[in-house]
């Protein structure tokens, strides 16, 4: 971040070095696991013919959700003019772009034939929700890149006037846009950027709802899985996406935000938004349980039973209820003036949302679709138990580390706002 200056303190440097080293090593391990998976096929996973979607699909919907949540948060700035959040507007857009990229990686590596991924374009089948979603993803990512570029172009052009590697990159990224020489020209360019951001935000709101609500619809339209097959399901996706986006911004801003007068109000605003969305999400989960679990003996109630008291109870109570509901609410309520604890609340929610996503996907598979099907044929790939294999974990964590590296790199070279620092470079100002 050029605005903050290149002279990091020693603690800042050590933190940065540690971050790049750790994230780099994890990303390389993930890349090796990815190469292994591409060479050997899906037999490296613990998936089966019965539990066909697992950790990667959970991470795919997690990252689509983070993207939609972050983007919708950015529209609060550019469409609804929430001043306090202005500081995280560009950061939210950037993370929305990166998160969607991550989601696409996860859905791509989950394909049995990753080399045929372009068939989705060449033989697009418009009755499939999945195919429709790919159109949404494509339009959405283009929109976000255009919006972010317009928001950054003045700063890019300004940075391009200096000397050095960063300036050269800025000149390339400015795509030939010149810094206005007159004050009027500057004002016009700035106003144009805000107009573009507003229009893009307005178009983007239904698009982002389509992106994540639609991703929920991929599951909700499956009549064969009563756990998914409800109108509430896509809405649950959307609300938990908003919660996860607010959590990501809370965590990132608590970590990267410059400690000045506006810092705590912005952070508190982000945290309270996160709590609002967590509460809404909890309400929807409760509604799902009331309607689904009331009458015992149905498929839906049996699956919810697995969730609350069965094989998923640890993930449910520990992850969904503990990390994604109780801990963030308690931290924000009791330690609401501490940036550290607010950031921790965001991180807790981010870890909890992994459990939420996992519990949205996998429980639908653990009961046989026909009575006796689990006993009819014994095969290691026709089982009703699933614990993600090493490859799934390594690639999962590796992609997350890779995204973190990309984010750090973007923070180094992109003008994301004067109030966002480089990774590890903010402590000194606090």
């Amino acid at each position, binding site marked *: 971040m050029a605005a903050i200056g290149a002279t990091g303190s020693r603690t800042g440097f050590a933190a940065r070095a540690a971050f790049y080293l750790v994230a780099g090593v994890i990303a390389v391990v993930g890349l090796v696991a990815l190469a292994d998976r591409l060479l050997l*096929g899906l037999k490296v996973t613990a998936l089966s*013919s019965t539990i066909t*979607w697992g950790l990667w699909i959970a991470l795919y919907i997690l990252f689509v959700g983070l993207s939609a949540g972050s983007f919708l948060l950015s529209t609060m700035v550019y469409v609804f003019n929430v001043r306090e959040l202005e500081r995280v507007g560009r950061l939210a857009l950037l993370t929305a772009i990166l998160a969607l990229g991550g989601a696409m990686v996860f859905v791509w590596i989950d394909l*049995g034939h990753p080399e045929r991924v372009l068939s989705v374009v060449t033989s697009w089948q418009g009755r*499939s929700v999945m195919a429709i979603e790919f159109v949404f993803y494509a339009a959405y990512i283009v929109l976000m890149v255009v919006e972010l570029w317009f928001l950054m172009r003045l700063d890019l052009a300004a940075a391009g006037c200096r000397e050095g590697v960063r300036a050269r990159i800025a000149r390339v990224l400015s795509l030939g846009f010149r810094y206005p020489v007159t004050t009027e020209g500057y004002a016009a360019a700035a106003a144009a950027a805000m107009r573009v951001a507003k229009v893009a935000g307005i178009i983007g709101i239904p698009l982002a709802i389509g992106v994540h609500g639609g991703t929920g619809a991929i599951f909700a339209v499956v009549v064969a899985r009563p756990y998914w097959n409800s109108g509430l399901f896509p809405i649950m996706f959307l609300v938990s996406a908003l919660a996860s986006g607010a959590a990501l911004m809370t965590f990132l801003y608590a970590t990267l935000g410059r400690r000045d007068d506006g810092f705590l109000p912005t952070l508190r605003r982000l945290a309270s938004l996160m709590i609002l969305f967590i509460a809404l999400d909890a309400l929807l989960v409760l509604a799902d349980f009331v309607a689904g679990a009331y009458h015992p003996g149905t498929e839906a109630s049996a699956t919810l039973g697995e969730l609350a008291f069965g094989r998923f109870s640890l993930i449910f109570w520990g992850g969904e209820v503990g990390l994604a509901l109780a801990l963030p609410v308690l931290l924000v309520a009791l330690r609401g003036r501490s940036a550290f604890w607010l950031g921790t609340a965001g991180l807790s929610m981010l870890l909890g949302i992994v459990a939420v996503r996992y519990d949205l996907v996998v429980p639908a598979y653990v009961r046989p679709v*026909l009575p006796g099907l689990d006993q*009819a044929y014994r095969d290691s790939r026709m089982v009703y138990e699933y614990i993600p294999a090493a490859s799934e974990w390594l690639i999962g964590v590796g992609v997350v580390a890779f995204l973190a590296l990309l984010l750090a790199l973007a923070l180094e070279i992109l003008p994301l706002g004067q109030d966002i620092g480089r990774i590890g470079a903010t402590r000194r100002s606090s």
Partner: protein
Amino acid sequence: MASTQGSPADTAPAAVATPAAAQASSGDGENAGRRHLSRREVLRRAVVSSVALPFAPLLPVEIAYAQPQAPTPIGPLGPAERDLVVRMERDLERALAKPVDQRKWVMVIDLRKCTGCNACVNACRSENALPPGVTYRVVLEEEVGVYPNVSKRFVPRNCMQCDNSPCTPVCPVGATYKRPDGVVAVDYLKCIGCRYCITACPYGTRSFDFGEYFTAGTPAVQPYETQRPSFEYGHKWTRQGTGSPIGNARKCTFCLHRVEQGVLPACVSTCIGRATFFGDANDPRSLVAELMSRPNARRMKEEAGTRPSVYYLE
């Protein structure tokens, strides 16, 4: 018939007349004056007739039995067609003579006849060279009652080839589709392996080919797993590396590759209890058309709106 070699009675027309000849010889004494047979001739005929008579049943059936009376068929079926397998094969011949879009392949499974032997499951595995994790047909076992008053019932299950198939519209690339003859097919070379269709099937009939071998982990993966092809959809598929059908969704095809050559599906041919029937529902003369219209015919999970092409007789 070596003993009668060279005699006139040995030729076919004469053989037909053999009973008559025997009769004639028994009344030889009375007719002797009229025919003036020599004693030598009478003796010769008597010996020939008595030796030939026990062999008469061995003569060609049409010839031996056509003579007394014309065959009277029972109902519209010929005697050969009274065997259900033969009848179904004739049904196939008639269906295959029609264009593909006028056929409608259906299966009928008589649950009262199923013994739960699983021969169909193994025949299917063998016919389609199925790898670990891929199964097209299983036999569900259901225990009824409380000990000690228990019994078991068996429900064979393969792809229902639904007319309103939940698996086909979800495919993002249109790799799985409903054929005009009713079979839900997978284009192995188009399938991207997203497994959405497997998720969408209410009967759990689709599998994913993970590229595993039964003999993996033994001193050598056997060539019968890597080189012996399956002939699904009329092509030759061998499983090697990560190439199709590895990495694809796979499912029962009603053994189209056999059916289109006039051979019944492997599970039908193998069924020891003659509990599984197959044929063309569009042909009112076919066995399946007759069975599927019975009042005890049911379809699985009909409430899902899938309109399966597999009927169960309960």
